[in-house]
């Protein structure tokens, strides 16, 4: 089977702009959390968030974040104009243009009878409009698609890109995700009592919920021989991916993480690897009671007594929802590149109910093959299996 490799990466998050700033934040275990500044909300000052240092302007926030990461990825891959013409684009996003739409709804309700929506809002609201704006801005003229499976969206997008390349739909596909902080998600997760007032502390016995974030990350994917023909540098290998549904509850995971375990098993099967081949797992690790317990049990079920080092980087990036899968895939690639495993900022006292002992601190390690988990509402579980560039 032809190997699909990653030849470009780009990322923007509360941890910083670009791969080097991100690598430093991960290695230092630096929290990206702080007070919400981007918009007025009664929740300002009460719920810390991971907000990106990027000025707000007339461009929809999800597009602006996506564009920052996408341009980095294309530059990193040295994918110039001719190659972009055939390149596909797959984007994962939860909110699309909602950050702007909710303001328009407020204006519409305030204006009363007879008012109409600003047609610019209509043009930007749907998730596909984000993909369209990104494709146009970067001259990506190949096939494009958008996936919205809540917090696993961009992991699904990366998996779709792999299938597009293997299936001959496009020689190069750029895949990733972008999501902006907005009132819908801030209030929505707060209404589910899923947001920690003190910032997330994944896998900790006293964890009290997640911390929302925003950001974007994109990967350039192509066949290895295509990359070699055009002289591209291989940054990492996409070895496998899996997606399985819990079919259990609208928001809560299966208590034993059945879908999560099945997704990891599917990714390993596609990669032709055994659990013992895995050097590190970047957990979904949101910091909610249910997620962390279910994910820990899924890991224990899959790996038995030999669970590899596991950590959650959610306090570094916040939970970036539809972008989380791509952002954490980049975190894994950087960790393998630089020879370290990120810790779990915020973790002090591991919860025995989670059945695993995650890494608290960053440590040096020669990881070659890793898993990255992304789980979403509706029991949507995705897992990516990534290999270090030189791990053949």
């Amino acid at each position, binding site marked *: 089977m032809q190997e699909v490799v990653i030849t470009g990466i780009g990322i923007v998050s509360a941890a910083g702009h670009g791969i080097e700033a991100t690598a430093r934040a991960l290695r230092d275990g630096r929290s990206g959390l702080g007070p919400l500044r981007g918009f007025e909300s*009664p929740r300002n000052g009460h719920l810390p968030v991971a907000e990106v240092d990027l000025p707000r302007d007339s461009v929809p926030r999800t597009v602006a974040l996506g564009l920052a990461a996408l341009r980095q990825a294309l530059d990193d891959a040295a994918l110039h104009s001719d190659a972009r013409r055939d390149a596909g684009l797959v984007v994962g996003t939860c909110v*699309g243009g909602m950050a702007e739409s909710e303001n328009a*709804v407020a204006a519409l309700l305030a204006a009363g009878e007879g008012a109409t929506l600003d047609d610019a809002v209509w043009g930007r609201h749907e*998730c596909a409009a984000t993909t369209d704006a990104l494709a146009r801005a970067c001259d990506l003229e190949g096939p494009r*698609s958008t996936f919205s499976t809540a917090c696993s969206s961009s992991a699904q997008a990366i998996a779709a890109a792999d299938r597009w390349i293997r299936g001959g739909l496009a020689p190069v596909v750029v895949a990733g995700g972008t999501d902006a902080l907005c009132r819908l998600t801030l209030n929505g997760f707060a209404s589910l009592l899923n947001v920690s007032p003190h910032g997330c502390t994944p896998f900790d016995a006293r964890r009290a919920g997640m911390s929302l974030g925003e950001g974007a990350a994109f990967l350039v994917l192509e066949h290895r021989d295509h990359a070699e023909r055009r002289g591209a540098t291989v940054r990492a290998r996409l070895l496998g991916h899996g997606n399985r549904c819990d079919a259990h509850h609208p*928001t809560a995971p299966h208590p034993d993480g059945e879908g999560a375990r099945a997704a990891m098993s599917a990714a390993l099967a596609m990669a032709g690897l055994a659990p013992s081949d895995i050097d590190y797992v970047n957990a979904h690790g949101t910091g909610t009671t249910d997620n962390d317990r279910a994910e820990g049990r899924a890991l224990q079920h899959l790996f038995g007594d030999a669970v590899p080092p596991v950590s959650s980087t959610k306090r570094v990036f916040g939970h970036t929802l539809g972008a989380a899968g791509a952002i954490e895939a980049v975190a894994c690639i950087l960790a393998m590149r630089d020879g370290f495993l990120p810790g779990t900022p915020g973790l002090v006292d591991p919860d025995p109910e989670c059945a695993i002992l995650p890494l608290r601190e960053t440590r040096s390690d020669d990881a070659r093959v890793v898993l990255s988990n992304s789980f*979403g509402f509706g029991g949507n579980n995705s897992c990516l299996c990534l290999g270090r560039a030189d791990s053949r």
Partner: protein
Amino acid sequence: MRGCTLPVDLGIRAYAIAGSGSDRAPAPRCEPMPPPGTRRSGSRLGGLATALARRCVAAGELGPETGVLVGTGLGCLTETQAFVEHMVRAAEATPKPRAFAASVHNAIASEVARELGCRGECQTAVQGEVSFAHALLAAHWIGGGARLLVGALDEASPYVAHALRSCGSHEEPGEGGALLLLGDPAPVRVTEIALGRAAAATVPNGFEIAVPDLAGGLAAPAGAIPFAGLPPHMSLFATASALATGVLAGEIPASALGLDATPSALWVSCRGRLGDRARIRLEVSGG
């Protein structure tokens, strides 16, 4: 965007339709649209998709590895609107958790999966009017003759009507969609999926059903059968594909498409408001 055409081989075992166009389908294939605001849990579209899935599936036909692949342009607007309007009116004081949980785009596919016990892949493609084509494409990649539920659904909302008026259209938006059960043996097959902007959406020969987009456009080359008379919505591509399946399977008279005789193949094409085009070829099995 350049065009690309992919040969595929997906058997369609059954189909079910709701909303715009469903009056053309035989009664066992037609599910009424639930009125907004009548569900106490889940989403309106999730409940509808589940009802459509049950119409497609015979007893014992699904296994735990069944996948659910759904397209939607705008997702669960009833619940999104309820959550956002309440959030605005209550100044973010008392957000509604149930509406939030049901507002995510994936709520449709995940409700089907939950209700029918489908633990295979669960995907939601949100590529505007051509979302259904991307759900079908995902089915092609999974392949292997797997049982898969594939379709697309969208609903009307005062915001869609507002938006259409802002664009200068006085058309009332339609709503609905269709679900297909894929697997073998099957009376009708999807044999080609084409994606692109212009060239890929032309029909080499034969009959085509062209689906109008929300802004009132119609990508209808000469010789096509316009899918006329139906209020457009973002998942009408799925509806048209299900109706074409019914015609090819002999369940819907060819005259419903203005044809004199049942054809052996049909193309269904769609142009999205953002410029995406998609076309699928449907054939009678063994034809």
